[in-house]
């Protein structure tokens, strides 16, 4: 898959390079999604400072590659970048960048939406909320 750039990175995600990567003269549409750390106040009045991501990198990467392959089976994707950051991600910074180029715009939206929805479901990456009082909370679905 030379047309896919799939990576787990410890440094700030290179959104501009993702855009450059998917730019293609065969494309009429490019869609980019960034999932960013949103400020939050806990019920107890603590402020969220950052999110801290941890991966099982070998497994997460192979899951991300399989996911990209599934997207390619549904949409005529020209190029695709799927980047996930690990480590501390401050407020307003992206933990995920997805960029997709397709011949027509509709497909770029659909494929990008599919990739983020599926990425959220089942990739071996976990996040911990880091709060202003120094506490940290792992986020697990359906946990108390």
């Amino acid at each position, binding site marked *: 898959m030379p047309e896919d750039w799939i990576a787990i990175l410890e440094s700030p995600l290179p959104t501009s390079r993702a855009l450059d990567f998917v730019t293609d003269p065969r494309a009429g549409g490019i869609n980019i999604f960034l*999932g960013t750390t*949103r400020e939050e106040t806990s019920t107890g009045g603590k402020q969220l400072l950052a999110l801290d*991501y*941890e991966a*099982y990198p*070998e*497994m997460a990467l*192979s899951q991300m590659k399989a996911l990209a392959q599934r997207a390619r089976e549904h949409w005529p994707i020209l190029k695709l970048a799927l980047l*996930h950051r690990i480590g501390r991600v401050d407020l307003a910074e992206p*933990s*995920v960048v997805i960029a997709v180029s397709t011949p027509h715009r509709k497909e770029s939206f659909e494929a990008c939406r599919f990739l*983020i929805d599926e*990425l*959220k*479901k*089942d*990739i*071996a*990456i*976990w*996040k*911990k909320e880091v709060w202003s009082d120094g506490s940290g909370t*792992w*986020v*697990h*679905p*359906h*946990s108390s």
Partner: protein
Amino acid sequence: MRVHVKLFAILRDRAGTGELSLHLHDGETVGGAVSALAQQHTSMADFLPRVAYAVNREYVNASTILHDGDELALIPPVSGGLDA
């Protein structure tokens, strides 16, 4: 036999480490290994029923037989790394 155990997220915090080595009888299953872990690391015990298992980076179920040198990863429920 010896199995390498990988722990992540809340399990890693509770165990105080991301990697463990487990000595098991030959022919032991994933479920048996997890029971042994729950006894040796009681801090993880209440969370273990909620994890999924991967052996050598492929999802498996509790009845899967382990082999010497296997990498057993305990996979907590994933948050997907993103807001809802």
